[in-house]
C-alpha cells in the first residue's frame, strides 16, 4: 500500500510510472459517501465516513460527494448542509415520497441510478443494518466489488485503486482488498471505527437534485409500522463514553452483577465478551468485538476478559483501558493502559466502592 501524499499531477497521479487506467474505468471519478438519513436523523457513521472520504478524495484530487435519499420533510436539505460541514463538496439528493422510510427496493433503485448517471470511482456506506442491506444490493445490481467492515481505507497511487483493509477470521488476520477492474469500488465501515471529523459550520457546497423513476404502486414491500426500541433496554454501546465490560473470568452469571454495580456508579454502559453473551448472561446487544459492536469510549474497564483478538478488535481504540484479570499472561495486558492482576470478583467491589467515595468527595468539594 502506497503512502504517497497528493501531488500536483493529480489527474495522472502515477503518470511517471506509465500507468494508464482503462478509459472505461477512468470515466468514473469522485468519492461518494451514502448519508444514512432515517427517521429524521443522520446516522453518525455517515460523518465518520465523510472524514475518511475527504482524505481519499484529496489523495485522488477529486470531489467528495454525499448522497442523500429521503423526503423533504425528513430533513434531506439539513442533512446536505451538515454533510458540507463535515467535508462534502456537493450532495446528490433524491427527494421522493416513496423514500419516506428505508426500503430496499426504492433505495437500491435510487442509488444505483445515481451511480450509473454520475459514475463515482468510490462509494462508501456505513456497515449498519440499513447500509449493509443497501450496499449488498447495489453492488450486485452494478456487478462490482464490495468490501465489508473495513478498518482502514487508503489509495494505492500506483493504480489509483481503493485499498480496503478489513479483519478476517474473527480478527486474527487483516487483509487488504482491491477492486481493480470494476467501478465503483464499494466499501462499508462499521460505526465508531473511523474518527469523527471536525465540523466546520462555514463550509458549504452544491446540491445536485435527481429524480426517482418509481411510484408507490411499483414497490412491492410496504412499511406497516415502526416499533421503537425501549431505549432503556437497548444499550447504545458504540457511542458510550464509559463502558464496563465483563467476561468469562467472572465464572458465574450472578457475579456479572458486579459489572452492573460499577457501571451504575460510573454512569457507564455495560459490555460483554462473546462467551458471556453466548452463555446468556447478558443481551446480545452488549457484545463487544468482531462479531459484536465496535466501541471507542473514553474509558473501558475489562474485568475477567482475556483480550482475545475477537474482543480486542472491537475495543482497542478506547482512550483508556483498565484490565482486571487473574492471568498475568492474558493478552489484554498487552494493550491495556492500566492493569490489575487479580480476581475480578474481589477487585470489582473494591473498585466500585473507591469510585463511589472519590466521586462523593469531589461532589462535596464542588
Amino acid at each position, binding site marked *: 500500500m502506497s503512502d504517497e501524499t497528493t501531488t500536483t499531477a493529480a489527474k495522472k497521479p502515477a503518470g511517471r510510472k506509465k500507468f494508464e487506467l482503462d478509459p472505461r474505468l477512468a470515466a468514473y471519478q469522485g468519492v461518494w459517501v451514502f448519508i444514512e438519513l432515517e427517521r429524521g436523523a443522520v446516522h453518525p457513521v455517515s460523518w465518520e465516513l465523510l472524514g475518511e472520504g475527504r482524505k481519499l478524495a484529496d489523495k485522488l484530487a477529486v470531489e467528495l460527494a454525499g448522497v442523500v435519499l429521503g423526503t423533504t420533510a425528513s430533513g434531506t436539505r439539513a442533512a446536505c448542509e451538515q454533510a458540507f460541514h463535515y467535508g462534502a463538496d456537493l450532495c446528490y439528493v433524491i427527494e421522493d415520497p416513496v423514500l419516506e422510510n428505508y426500503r430496499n427496493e426504492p433505495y437500491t433503485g435510487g442509488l444505483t441510478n445515481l451511480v450509473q448517471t454520475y459514475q463515482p470511482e468510490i462509494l462508501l456506506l456505513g456497515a449498519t443494518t440499513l447500509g*449493509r442491506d443497501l450496499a449488498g444490493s447495489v453492488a*450486485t445490481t452494478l456487478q462490482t466489488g464490495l468490501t465489508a467492515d473495513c478498518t482502514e481505507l487508503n489509495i494505492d497511487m500506483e493504480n489509483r485503486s481503493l485499498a480496503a483493509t478489513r479483519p*478476517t477470521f474473527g480478527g486474527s488476520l*487483516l*487483509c487488504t482488498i482491491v477492486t481493480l477492474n470494476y467501478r465503483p469500488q464499494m466499501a462499508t465501515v462499521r460505526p465508531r471505527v473511523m474518527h469523527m471529523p471536525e465540523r466546520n459550520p462555514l463550509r458549504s457546497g452544491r446540491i445536485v437534485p435527481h429524480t426517482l423513476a418509481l411510484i408507490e404502486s411499483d414497490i412491492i414491500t410496504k412499511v*406497516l409500522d415502526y416499533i421503537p426500541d425501549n431505549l432503556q433496554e437497548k444499550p447504545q454501546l458504540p457511542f458510550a463514553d464509559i463502558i464496563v465490560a465483563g467476561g468469562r473470568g467472572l465464572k458465574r452469571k450472578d457475579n456479572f452483577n458486579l459489572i452492573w454495580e460499577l457501571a451504575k456508579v460510573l454512569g457507564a454502559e455495560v459490555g460483554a465478551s462473546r462467551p458471556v453473551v453466548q452463555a446468556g448472561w447478558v443481551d446480545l446487544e452488549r457484545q463487544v468485538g468482531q462479531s459484536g459492536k465496535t466501541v471507542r469510549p473514553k474509558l473501558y474497564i475489562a474485568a475477567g476478559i482475556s483480550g482475545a483478538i475477537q474482543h480486542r478488535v472491537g475495543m482497542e481504540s478506547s482512550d483508556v483501558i483498565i484490565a482486571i484479570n487473574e492471568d498475568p499472561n492474558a493478552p489484554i495486558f498487552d494493550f491495556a493502559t492500566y*492493569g*490489575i492482576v487479580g480476581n475480578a470478583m474481589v477487585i470489582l467491589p473494591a473498585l466500585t466502592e*473507591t469510585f463511589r467515595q472519590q466521586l462523593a468527595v469531589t461532589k462535596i468539594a464542588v
Partner: protein
Amino acid sequence: MHIVVCIKQVPDSAQIRVHPVTNTIMRQGVPAIINPYDLASLEEALRLKDKLGGRVTVLCMGPPQAESALRKALSFGADEAILVTDRAFAGSDTLATSFALASAITQIQKDMPVDIVFTGKQTIDGDTAQVGPGIAKRLGLQLLTYVSKIDGVDLDKGEIVVQRRAEGGAQVLRTRLPCLITTIEGINDIRFATMPNMFRAARYALKTWDAKTAGVEDLTKVGLKGSPTIVSKVFAPQTKAQKAELIDSEGRKPRDLALTLVTKLFTRHPKLRDEINSRAL
C-alpha cells in the same frame, strides 16, 4: 410451501489460531461447523414448515467435506439437501458466490417453485452479510434482511409480514412471496435432532451438483474470474508496543489496589474525572 435455506460450513472462528511466525491460519484441529447464524434461519424455516407444511431444502456451496454440514441440517429436519461443489468455484468472492447460489436455486425451482429463501445474516468467517442481498437481487426476490420475527405468512395471498431490525427500532414490513429472508441471531434455538431424522440424515442420498448441474454455464462468472474483489495482502494486526502499566498487587488489599488505580486514573486523566463526575449518580 417450498423453502430453501442456504448454509455455509465454516471453521469455528472461536478456535482459530494464527501461527505466530508464519502468520497463517492454523486450521488443523479446528472443527468445521454450520455457520451459527444460518441455524437461526434453518430453525425459522422448519417452524414455518411445521405450521404450514411443505418442504425445506438446504443448499450449501463448498468443498466435498461440507457434506457433513448438510447431513447435520437434515438431522434437524430438513427434507432435501444439495451440495454445490466444483473446483471452478474456488476463490469466489461474495458477488461470484451469490451468482452460483442463485443459479442453483433456479435449478431447484424447476423441481418445485420456491416461496422463501433463507440465509444467515452473515457468516462468522467472512462477516460480509453480502451474499443474501446478492442472491435476492439476482433472482428478483423481495429482500428482508435482519428479520427478528415472522409475524405471519398468508399462502393464499402470497404475502408475508415480518419485523425487521432497523436503527433504534423494528420495521414491520409486508411483502409478496417469493422473498429472501436473513434472520438475526437469538430469535430462536435450533431444535434437537430426533432419532428418526438422524437415521434419515445418515442414509440420505445427498445431491451433489457441479457447476454445470447447478446451472452455471458461464464459468467466468464464478471463482477468481468472477470476483471483482482481489485480496492483495494478508497480514497480522500490528501489536501495540506499549504494555499495560500494572498496579503492583503483591500482598496488597483489594481496597489499596483500587485506590491506587483510581488516584492514578484521575490524576493522569483529569478530563475523565470531570466526565465521570458530570454523569455519575
